[in-house]
Each structure stands twice: as C-alpha cells, then as structure tokens.
C-alpha cells in the first residue's frame, strides 16, 4: 500500500510540474499549446540517452534536456507567435504529430516504438537515488523549484508584461512592449521546465516509449490546468491531483469494464472542460468569474 501511494505521489509530482509549466503560458500569457507532451518527451529521451550512453548525472541530464527542449520550442514559437493566436494552436498540434513520428521512427536514438529499456537510476552528486522515498523527495524538490521560478517570473515585470499581453495585445504593443519576444521567451521557459518532468519520468520508470508522449497526454495536461484553474499558482497542482486520482477512483465503481476506463476518463475531462467553460471559466481554484472576465482574451 505504501509503495502504491508513493508511486502515485511521484507521478502526481511529475504531472504537477507539467501542469504548472503549461499554465505559465496558457494562464498567464494566453498561449494555447497542444504540444506540451512533446517537450516532456524531449526531456525524457535526452535524459535517458545521456544516462545510458554516458552515465550522466541527474543534474547534467536534466539540464541538457532543458536546453534542447528550449531550443526546439524556439523553432515552434518564433514563426508561430508573430501571427494570430489560432496559428500557434495549429502549429503546436502539427508539432505534436511531427515530433511523435520522429520519436517512433528515429530508432537509433529513441528505440522506435519499443522505446528505451534499462535506464539507470538517477545519480545525484555521485549517489544513486533508487529508493522510491528518496525519489519522491527529488520529485518534490524539482516541483518546488519549478513553482518558485514560475512564481518569481509571474511576480516580475516579465510576468506583468505577459498578463498585459494576454489581456490586450494591442494595448501592450502600443505601450512599447515587444509582444513576440515576450511570448517566445515564455514558451521557452515553459518548455524547458517541462523537460525536467520528462527527465524525472525517465529515471523513475527506467523505461520510456512513444505512448507516454502522445496527443492524449498533452490533452490530459491541458485538462489539469483547466480543471484546477488557470493563472493561479496552486490550481494546476490541484488539477494534477484530481486528474491522476480519477482512474484510481473509477476502478472502485462496480460494473465498469476495465477496458473502458481510459475512455470514460477522457469523457469526464471533456465534460469537465465544457461545463467549466460554460459555468466557471476560471476553474475550480480560480478567482471566480469577475477577474476572468477581464482575464483571458
């Protein structure tokens, strides 16, 4: 039982990092990305390959993933953010499809559909973190650092500029803000920290394949942010807890065929998204409809 709870806690921690980083662009900057699972994947594959081939330290492997993820997000954001918001949605959906093909076809690096097996345990300053309890501590530390960085950015002038852009892009650019540059930086930060989650995931499971980075995963991260509440610090974390506890709760419902649980789970997210948008667009943890009215644009 304890193992089960620790396992769930680690997965919640990893997903919370993803939700918090997506919320940074979705909630604060109003940028809608459907490719968040890809940056998660880039982090995971980079860390896995570095650890397997060169026995890289956790910090080194994670940092490399962050850099690569940031650079690739730049390739997406630079052209797509110059133009209207709709373009970024389409381009990110395209990147999700394209990158997934690369993950499953670039067999020499990613192991193809079969994935990478036998990733060594995370090595932090020369010590192997193989005990689940210690790994949970590592995950929570990474989540705390991510939250802290996001909090500092949101409170800084950078964060205020992003919110200004989200609320009124024209006014922000009229005030001399470099809208494209700010948005691009936001996407880079968000993608780089999503890679941290990927690195943790690869080291924890010691096995990764394409299945963990498909569109459904991107959608699940979006669901976490929306259900928890956009543009709040804690909302996405709560969303991650709810979304990850859902399948466990569903197994307690009698007469539910186990093969349909995944489907039912997705229908529940879908329904939650629709109902929240109609009745409470700011999410469960949001500030109520007044701020949101002035908010997302």
């Amino acid at each position: 039982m304890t193992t089960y709870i620790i396992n769930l806690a680690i997965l919640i921690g990893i997903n919370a990092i993803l939700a918090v980083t997506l919320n940074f662009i979705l909630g604060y900057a109003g940028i809608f990305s459907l490719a968040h699972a890809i940056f998660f994947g880039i982090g995971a594959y980079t860390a896995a390959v570095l650890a397997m081939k060169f026995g890289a330290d956790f910090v080194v492997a994670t940092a490399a993933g962050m850099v690569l993820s940031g650079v690739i997000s730049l390739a997406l954001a630079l052209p797509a953010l110059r133009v209207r918001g709709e373009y970024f949605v389409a381009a990110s959906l395209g990147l999700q499809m394209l990158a997934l093909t690369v993950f499953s076809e670039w067999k020499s690096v990613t192991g193809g559909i079969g994935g990478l097996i036998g990733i060594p345990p995370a090595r932090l300053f020369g010590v192997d973190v193989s005990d689940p309890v210690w790994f949970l501590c590592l995950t929570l530390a990474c989540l705390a650092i991510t939250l802290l960085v996001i909090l500092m950015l949101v409170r800084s002038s950078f964060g205020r500029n992003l919110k200004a852009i989200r609320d009124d892009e024209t006014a922000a650019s009229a005030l001399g803000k470099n809208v494209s540059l700010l948005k691009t930086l936001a996407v880079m930060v968000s993608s780089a920290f999503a890679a941290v989650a990927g690195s943790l995931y690869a080291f924890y499971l010691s096995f990764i394949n394409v299945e963990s980075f498909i569109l459904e995963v991107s959608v699940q991260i979006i669901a976490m942010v929306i259900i928890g509440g956009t543009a709040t610090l804690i909302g996405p974390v709560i969303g991650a807890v709810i979304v990850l506890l859902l399948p466990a709760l569903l197994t307690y419902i009698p007469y539910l065929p186990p093969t349909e649980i995944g489907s039912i789970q997705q229908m529940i997210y879908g329904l939650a998204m629709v109902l929240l948008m109609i009745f409470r667009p700011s999410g469960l943890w949001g500030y109520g409809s007044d701020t949101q009215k002035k908010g997302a644009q």
Partner: protein
Amino acid sequence: MVFLQLFVNGLQLGAIYALTAVGFSLIFGSTKIFHVAHGSAFAISGYIYWWLASKLGVPWPIATLAAVIAAAVFGLLMERWIYRPIQRHEASFFTVFIAAFGVQLIIQNLIGTVAGRGMETVNTPLSRSVEVMDGLFIAPIAAISILVAIVVFYALNYFLTRTHVGIAMRALSENPDLVRVFGLDPGRVAQWAFMIGSAVVVPGAIFTAMTAGLNPAIGTHVMLVSLAATIVGGIGSVRGAAAGGMLLGLAENLAYWKLDPQWSEAVTFIVLFAFIIFRPSGFFGSPTIAK
C-alpha cells in the same frame, strides 16, 4: 507513372480535405468561432453512414441523408448549447476553444466505446481500382469525390452570393451590428452557418469511410487538416480553404514518392509551417499580423 498515380490519389484526398476545410472556414468566417469540434461532425456523420449502409444495409441515398441531418444537428446543437451560453458571458478565443476541445474528446471516446476502436470501412464496388493506363490505377470513387467537391463548392458559392441567408452570413462576418439593424437575428444566421458548415463535411466523411476508413480518432486528424488548410488558404476565405485542402492532399500523396506513409502528417505540418513563415496570410487572406 508513379508520379501520375500519386497525383491522382492526391487529387482525391485533396477533394476530401477541401470539403472538410470549407465547412470549417465558412463557420469561422461568418461567426468568428474557432470551431475545433468540426472534426466531430466529420466523425459522427462518417460513422452514421457506416452503421446504416454497412451494418443495416440501408440504401445509400437514405444513409447519406441521415448523415447530413446528423452533421447539421450536431452543428446546430454546438451553437445553441455550447457556444451561445459561453458567448453570453464572455467570448474569448480561449474559453470557446477549450469547450469545443472538450466536446471533441467526448465524441471521440463515445464513438470508441459504442462502435469499437478499430478501423471501419464501407465496402463498395466504387472503390475498386481499374487499370486505366499502363500502371495507372484509378477507382471510380476518385472521379466522384473530385466531381462532388466541385459541385459542392459551386453550390456553396452560389448560396453565399445569391441567397438571402448566404448574403446575411457574409454580412455577419463583416458587421454583426449592421445585421441586427437590418432586422435579422445574428444568432439565427450563425445557426445557419453552423448547420451548413457542418453538413458540408458529409461527402468527405463518406468518401473517407469508403477509401481509407474511419477510426474514432479521425476527428483529430480532420481538425489538424482543417486548421492547416484554413491557414494555408487564408483565414476566413472559403475558396482559400478549398485550395488549401487540395494543396495538402496533393502534398501528402506526392510525399509518398520519397517518404514512408507514417510521415504523411509531418508533411501537412511542414506545408503549414512554410506558410506561417513565408506567407502567414495564406493564398487569399488579407494580411493579418496579430489580432
């Protein structure tokens, strides 16, 4: 000869894409709603046709009619139950997008639960290829889909320029307040746009069911193609969307010349990206940098 074969296949796929993208573009153009659940109308009508024609043996005209009605009702209900309540308190791109995405998720999983997650095809003699020339195989369905795409496109053009509802729809895209001043109900006009825009996907859905086949996740693929074709053709331009769809269909098939089939979605993305970089306003769109 391989080239010619791929070109013909590309025209056929392009016709299907054009039919899908035109509906999306019509809805977006007149109501300014970014209707990402458009793929669901495609999936619903495709599966209804498959269920009636293939499972129950209903004659094709009745099955087609049922599919058209299903798609139109889906569009109507989306406008009434989802988009209108949201727009009543707030009409941001963000809320509309999430809600539509939620609907897409529900429909996709509902279809998977009800009809199964496998690939379903409608068997018809029309999709049997005939060797027309040495090494060139063409199925009658290729000619039919191209022909239907042209007919639908011209009918839509006629509708938008010659009928009252069509003109009102174009007026709605220009200035909703002026539509109201003329004594028309903008909500009613928007409903028409949703019904017609959704019904237009039906031929594409049926041809897909007859050729490549349907799976529950097809809505997502249709969404990517519609978005890409609309951007490539120029946002809000119906003829642009048709041209964009055709271009994507051709590009996808011509890519088979050198690439493996699993890269087809990647080709769509590369064409889309090239347009975003070099010509963000698309073929026919007015230059719109940032809204």
